[in-house]
């Protein structure tokens, strides 16, 4: 639509960096102009806090804890979601009967389930796992069903005429055919799971009075309500963002490896 004149790569880089750099500079300038004791976050202080938190190891351990919960919850949800999705995709009857229930739960956000999860499982890791699993489940399920529906029926029929068993068809024809959608679903689910864990830890941290459920979300809450440190909050936010990016990139890499045939 616009002219694709080849700009010098350096000019492109400048253009890409100008806005973030400018904003950070303005931010720092504004923060410096505030009185000395102000709690407002500033870029330089954020960096300092980052270094401190890394040195004490608390940032790393909190991240690992959150990630661990995410991975576990995601794994449980994916296994269930893919299995159920394959069944629903393969059988009209199963899909018909389960669809109303699933579609009814879909608009109910993971966080809405939180109070119930707390009632049942307390304020520790099981609750966090439950929220993550609930959040991851739907993207995986829906994309798996969609993936199965997109498998060319003729391939299945061709396999049947060759006398191949239903189980083998499922694993050798349907599964690979649905794989791109399934992997998309898992990538989306992982993203949602990461958001969910932060939210869950934040909320639980708020409700359990800062007690030990751990994780980045809880750490953020502590820095908000107890050891008030806005710079630390910003550090946590950046970590949340960076981890989200890394997860997404990792999943895309796996996708490329597993589906070399996709354009």
């Amino acid at each position, binding site marked *: 639509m616009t002219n694709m004149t080849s700009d010098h790569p350096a000019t492109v880089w400048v253009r890409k960096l*100008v806005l973030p750099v400018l904003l950070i500079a303005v931010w720092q300038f504004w923060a410096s102009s505030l009185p000395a004791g102000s709690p407002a976050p500033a870029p330089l202080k954020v960096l300092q806090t980052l270094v401190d938190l890394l040195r004490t190891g608390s940032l790393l351990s909190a991240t690992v804890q959150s990630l661990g919960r995410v991975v576990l919850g995601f794994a449980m949800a994916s296994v269930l979601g893919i299995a159920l999705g394959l069944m629903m995709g393969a059988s009209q009857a199963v899909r018909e009967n389960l669809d109303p229930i699933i579609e009814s739960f879909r608009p*109910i*956000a993971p966080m*809405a389930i939180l109070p119930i999860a707390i*009632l*049942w499982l307390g304020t520790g890791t099981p609750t966090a796992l439950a929220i993550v699993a609930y959040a991851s489940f739907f993207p995986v399920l829906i994309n798996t069903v969609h993936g199965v529906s997109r498998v060319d029926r003729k391939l299945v029929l061709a396999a049947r005429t060759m006398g191949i068993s239903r189980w083998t068809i499922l694993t050798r024809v349907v599964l690979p055919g649905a794989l791109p959608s399934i992997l998309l679903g898992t990538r989306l689910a992982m993203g949602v799971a990461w958001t969910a864990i932060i*939210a869950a830890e*934040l909320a639980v941290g708020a409700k359990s009075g800062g007690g030990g459920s751990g994780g980045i979300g809880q750490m953020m*809450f502590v820095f908000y309500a107890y050891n008030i440190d806005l710079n630390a909050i910003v550090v946590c936010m950046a970590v949340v*963002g960076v981890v989200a990016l890394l997860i997404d990139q990792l999943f895309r890499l796996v996708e490329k490896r597993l589906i070399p045939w996709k354009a």
Partner: protein
Amino acid sequence: MTTSPGSPVMRTYRTLWVSLRSFAVFFALWWLLHWWNGNPLQLPSPFKVFEALGGLMREGEIAEHASVSTLRMLLALSLSIVVAVPLGFWMGLSRRAEEVIDPLVEMLRPISGIAWLPLALFIFGVGDTLPVFIMFYVGFFPILLNTVAGVRQTDARLLAAARTMGIGPWPLLVHVLVPSALPTVMVGIRLAFAASWAAIVAAELIGSPTGLGFAIEWYRQMLMTPKVFAFILAIGVVGYVCDLGLRSLQRRLTPWADGTGASS
């Protein structure tokens, strides 16, 4: 029955019947679980939940909280649209604009709206602004990304055809580019709604004295579990109804496109 098995009327009846049947099974299982569990505080019987729901509706509490949440959501969604759509058009049309703005967008996007809660709480405090801000933030990105995509995937042939009819640059934008991008933008708006509706619960749970999210948490603390369930149900229903509304809007505004935003 004089209608044939494949007719639309029969199909609707069948879908209704299957749905009813599935829900009946679901509620039966629920009741069994409740009976086996024995603790009404943890898992109340479905009857109790419906009773609570009825009571809340009669007292107007559901309507009160639901309207608060819905209004906040509408405000946030409108703000997201007003900001993200023009920006998306600009970025879609100008490679320079995209180069300047995209890095900031890509840096902020992975930081979920929820992660902003503590900082936002500090800035806005508890109240109305907080949920609206969070929802605006969450809804902004899907709309922006989809608008850019919608502009980019405009068929160059359509633009060429319009130019051969002597159509100038501004009419080209208004009469070709905008309609062409509209289906994809609508999809973005629906995605934004789903994401913000999920975010509002978290935002209200932690940072608001009113709203459906607040209500769930409030009644949990009071251990009035049937009401908790009732409000969760309300969240689901309102979300579903709003999505229906958006889908209908989508059909009205873009009758030529299917639900995925594709035009053929």
